[in-house]
């Protein structure tokens, strides 16, 4: 047997797991990947990696990988394998049939942050130019859509202000609703390096995460607030900053809209945001809120990093605005070591956001309602485009139930597993007459699909990803696509089959189109990236090799100034009561990735073979639950079962679990409440009750779980 440690080929590419965007040298032997070596020249990772990027690559050749196109007339039928030609023709004619019967707007498309910029751009073009409507959304809807909204409103661009290395200049690091050592491990290590050098740390999180207390980390201030009180606490921090005059007046006067600042300052200085009044609501001592405010404002360089603990709330967008307000008021923007930075979950969520996979904006966050912008796309694409915003992902499901949405093209997403209130989603999926899924595996959503197009993993394609630091990295084909086509090639086939002539010799030509139509990507091309490795947008004639730090002189707003939004705290409608007295919050763990489609199919599964419910010993013991017991967790929406684990990380009244395993079906439990601005689901707050499952009934349920149906409460 050949020695697999002696590769015959090496390809430099980018990891598709979290938004850090680590560079890897993928080594192959006889056409199969044998190992992934972290690349020393990678500008995000500098030769580091985590155990997902390093080891969890084998999913691409998992036994259950689908490599043949399949169709079926009804979701109750078995799949019939067919040729590519037949599958594409069938998908095209079915989508057109649905549109003829129910109207142009009765179908839509979903793209995925696991796909490349080129593919995401092409799917939105498919929706707008071929389907003829703006029903296009992407998975950022359910994670960082509030980031785009909240940061655009205050600092002008919905993206990280800094590059990752900037943290090495930070004196105070504030982590809000994120756990970098688990979710963004390579960045987490960089943060630890700075903490070892003496930087101070503020953590705002209901859980005592690794970021609060673990080797090399000890938070100076931990605000373990009650889930759902982010906005109240952030406004209270602002209250202290204004009342104690800790803000940077010079920065605000020279760089921001002073009138809006004054209005905001008067608003947050109201007594209702005093720590004495917010503390009790959030379960915090007022003194702790004051300490956090003073430490953040003291800098001299303070940097905010935040995650889905900010965005996935009914006030997610407001929470992001609070962070924008804070950074502007203290002058923590425009240089290294400061900033406001979303930690993006998937490899290409930033790219998904940038490249117009939204129902209301084209690439570069420019509104579809803007005649001038729309005209530039119409000219390039040779078609008339819809001037009205389309349906957002949750609205597509609503519309399906209401009877006006009957077809979907879904590339690389699994909404049935990943979206909230699973019973509602399944009810909607059952209404569809044509669902086309392009994926590696028969995922949960494929159970409700009519056409399956076997896609390619990021190891099998060319293109680019944009990481959380706005860095556009090259994705290079390491092995041949197992099913024959790269994902963008399949979309091109479908576009042509539906009567829109599309021709690209390679993914680089799609990137050229992106650059032509998106100001921030103007200077980006395969040639540039192959020459200098990677580039952070904006990249244009003023910054031919990209931009590390945003907002140095002006903000990307019409008058060049940052601004302040009034951020009233509105408690979520999801409340605990006698029936559901605990609050469930969800998150993820180091070894697994999101819904686990990839990592569960690798040896990484050994580290986290099931999702467990973290519960504090007191809450467990009053319910007669012992460590390791099987429990049933129920909300107003549904219930599911998993094992309980005593944990000191959660406070009394709060329980926590991960969502990596489909069998857990935790999204049967999560609520259908969503962010006021973007409909981003409120995953982080659901009122629940937890009861011990008797052994007999557990076995019965375990058997039942194998079925395709959702078990409702």
């Amino acid at each position, binding site marked *: 047997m050949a020695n697999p440690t002696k590769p015959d080929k090496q390809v430099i590419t980018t990891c598709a797991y979290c938004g850090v965007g680590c560079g890897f040298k993928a080594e192959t032997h006889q056409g199969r990947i044998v190992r992934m070596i972290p690349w020393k020249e990678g500008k995000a990772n500098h030769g580091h990696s985590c155990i997902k990027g390093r080891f969890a690559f084998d999913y691409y050749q998992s036994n259950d990988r689908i490599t043949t196109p399949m169709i079926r007339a009804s979701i109750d039928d078995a799949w019939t394998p067919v040729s590519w030609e037949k599958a594409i023709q069938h998908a095209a004619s079915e989508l057109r049939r649905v549109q003829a019967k129910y109207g142009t*707007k009765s179908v839509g498309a979903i793209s995925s942050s696991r796909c490349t910029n080129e593919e995401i751009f092409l799917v939105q073009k498919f929706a707008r130019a071929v389907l003829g409507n703006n029903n296009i959304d992407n998975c950022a809807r359910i994670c960082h859509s509030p980031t785009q*909204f909240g940061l655009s*409103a205050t600092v002008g661009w919905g993206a990280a202000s800094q590059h990752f290395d900037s943290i090495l200049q930070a004196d105070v690091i504030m982590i809000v609703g994120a756990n970098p050592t688990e979710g963004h491990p390579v960045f987490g290590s960089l943060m630890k390096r700075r903490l070892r050098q003496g930087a101070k740390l503020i953590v705002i999180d209901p859980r005592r995460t690794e970021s609060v207390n673990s080797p090399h980390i000890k938070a100076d201030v931990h605000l373990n607030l009650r889930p759902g009180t982010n906005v109240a606490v952030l406004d209270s921090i602002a209250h202290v900053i204004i009342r104690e005059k800790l803000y940077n007046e010079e920065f605000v006067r020279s760089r921001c809209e002073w009138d809006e600042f004054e209005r905001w300052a008067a608003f947050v200085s109201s007594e209702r945001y005093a720590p004495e009044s917010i503390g009790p609501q959030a379960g915090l001592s007022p003194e702790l809120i004051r300490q956090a405010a003073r430490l953040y404002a003291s800098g001299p360089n303070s940097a905010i990093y935040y995650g889905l603990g900010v965005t996935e709330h009914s006030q997610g967008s407001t929470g992001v605005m609070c962070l924008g307000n804070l950074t502007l008021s203290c002058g923590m923007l425009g240089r290294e070591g400061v900033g406001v930075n979303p930690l993006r979950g998937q490899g290409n969520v930033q790219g998904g956001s940038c490249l117009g996979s939204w129902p209301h904006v084209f690439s570069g966050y420019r509104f579809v309602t*803007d005649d001038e912008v729309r005209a530039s796309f119409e000219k390039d694409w040779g078609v008339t485009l819809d001037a*009205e*915003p389309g349906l957002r992902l949750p609205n597509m499901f609503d519309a399906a139930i209401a009877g006006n949405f009957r077809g979907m093209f879904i590339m690389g997403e699994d909404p049935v597993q990943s979206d909230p209130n699973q019973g509602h989603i399944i009810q909607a999926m059952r209404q569809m007459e044509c669902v086309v899924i392009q994926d590696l595996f028969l995922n949960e959503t494929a159970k409700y699909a009519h056409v399956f197009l076997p896609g390619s993993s990021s190891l099998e394609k060319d293109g680019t990803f944009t990481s959380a630091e706005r860095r556009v990295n090259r994705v290079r084909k390491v092995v041949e696509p197992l099913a024959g086509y790269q994902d963008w090639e399949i979309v091109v086939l479908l576009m042509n089959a539906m009567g829109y002539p599309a021709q690209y010799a390679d993914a680089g030509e799609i990137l050229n189109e992106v650059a032509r139509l998106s100001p921030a990507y103007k200077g980006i091309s395969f040639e540039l990236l192959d020459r200098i490795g990677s580039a952070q947008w904006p990249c244009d004639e003023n910054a031919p090799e990209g931009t590390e730090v945003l907002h140095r002189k002006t903000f990307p707003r019409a008058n060049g100034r940052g601004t302040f939004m*009034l951020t*009233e705290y509105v408690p979520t409608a999801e409340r605990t009561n006698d029936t559901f007295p605990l609050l469930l919050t969800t998150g993820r763990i180091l070894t697994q990735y999101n819904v686990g489609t990839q990592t569960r199919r690798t040896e990484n599964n050994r580290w986290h073979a099931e999702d467990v419910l973290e519960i504090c010993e007191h809450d467990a013991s009053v319910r007669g639950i012992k460590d390791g017991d099987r429990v049933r967790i129920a909300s107003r929406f549904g219930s599911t079962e998993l094992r309980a684990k005593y944990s000191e990380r959660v406070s009394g009244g709060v329980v926590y679990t991960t969502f990596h395993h489909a069998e857990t079906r935790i999204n049967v439990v999560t609520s259908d409440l969503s962010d006021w601005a973007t409909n981003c689901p409120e995953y982080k707050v659901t009122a629940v009750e937890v009861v011990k499952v008797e052994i007999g009934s557990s076995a019965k349920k375990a058997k039942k779980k194998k079925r395709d149906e959702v078990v409702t409460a």
Partner: protein
Amino acid sequence: MSQSVAHPEETTSARAVPLERLIVMANQIADFFSPYPGPRRAEGIRNHLRTYWDPRMRQDLIDHIAAGGDGVSPSIVEGAQLLTTGDDRKGYYGPPKA
């Protein structure tokens, strides 16, 4: 128990989003803009509905308001009014304009 495939009552309407949910969404928007003074509040709401809502959602809201607007916040009524009177379509980010 299996999930049933019950159709809600509105199967035959032209609705994109069930009315009850639409009202919840609208009132959440009203809550956000509540700290702004009257004209800015209304303009903020108009801009949001115009820029982010599918036209069918907007029309359903306008129709519901015309039919009495049961359950809809007064500031949404003011904001929705501007949808029918103004023709400024271009959206913007940032604080509502005066």
